[in-house]
C-alpha cells in the first residue's frame, strides 16, 4: 500500500462520484466519458493492488493477510463490475450505480489502510 496512491484513488473516486451524481440529477445516462473515467480509476486501483502484491511477496505482510487480500480483491473488482452494470442501464440510474460504487471505494480503501498499518 502506497499512501499517496490511496489518497489519489480516494480523491479521484469522490470526484467521479460527484460527476456521476450531477449526471443523475441532470437525468443523463452513462456515456463514454464516464466509462473512460472509471477506466482511469480502475488503473489506479490495479496499480495499488500490484504494489501491495509485490510488497507482500517481498515479505511485508499485514497481520490479517487473508482479510487484506479479500478486501483488495473486492476493491479491484468493484469498479469494472459496477461500470458494466451501470452502462447497461440507459437512464439516469446508470450513473447512480457508479456514484454508489465510487462512494463505497474510499471506505474500502480506509479499511485496507487499517489492515495494512494497524494503529494500536
Amino acid at each position, binding site marked *: 500500500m502506497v499512501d499517496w496512491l490511496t489518497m489519489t484513488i480516494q480523491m479521484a473516486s469522490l470526484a467521479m462520484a460527484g460527476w456521476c451524481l450531477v449526471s443523475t440529477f441532470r437525468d443523463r445516462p452513462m456515456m463514454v466519458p464516464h466509462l473512460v473515467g472509471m477506466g482511469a480509476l480502475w488503473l489506479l486501483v490495479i496499480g495499488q493492488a500490484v504494489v501491495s502484491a509485490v510488497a507482500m511477496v517481498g515479505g511485508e505482510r499485514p497481520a490479517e493477510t*487473508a*482479510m487484506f487480500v*479479500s478486501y483488495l480483491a*473486492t476493491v479491484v473488482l*468493484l469498479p469494472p*463490475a*459496477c461500470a458494466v*452494470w*451501470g452502462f*447497461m*442501464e440507459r*437512464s439516469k*440510474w*446508470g450513473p*447512480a*450505480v457508479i456514484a*454508489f*460504487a465510487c462512494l*463505497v471505494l474510499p471506505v474500502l480503501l480506509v479499511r485496507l489502510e487499517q489492515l495494512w498499518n494497524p494503529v494500536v
Partner: protein
Amino acid sequence: MSDTAASSDRTLRTGPGRLLVAVYSVFALAATARGSYQLATRFDEAPLAYGLSVAAGAVYLVAAVCLARADRTSRTVALVSCGVELAGVLFVGALSVFVPGLLPDDTVWSRFGSGYGFVPLVLPVLGLWWILRVHRMDRR
C-alpha cells in the same frame, strides 16, 4: 398477456432497481465475508452475532439475485427477503440496544445498522417500495 408479462418482467431490474441490485450485491458480499471470516477465526467469542451476519448476508444475496433475475417468482422471493431484512434489522437493532449482552460483537444489523451508515435500515424499505411499485404498474 404473455407479452406484457414478458416486458414488465424486466422492469424490476431497471431504473431504481438497477441501483438496488448494486447496493444489495455489495452488502451481500460485505455481510457474508465479514460473518464467515469471524466464524472461521473467532467462533467462540460471539457465535450468535457472527452467525447473524452470515444469515443477513444470505438474505441480501437472495434479494440481489431475485431483483436481478426479475421474473414473477423472483419478485415474490425478493419481496419476502426484503420483508425478512426489515424485520431482522428492527429486531436485531432493538436487541442490540436493549439487551447488549446477548450480542457481544457487532453484526451488520446491530444498532439498526449504524456501523454501515444506517443503509441496512433504509435498504429494505426502498426495496419494498420498488417491488410494490413495479407490482402496481403491472396490474394497471
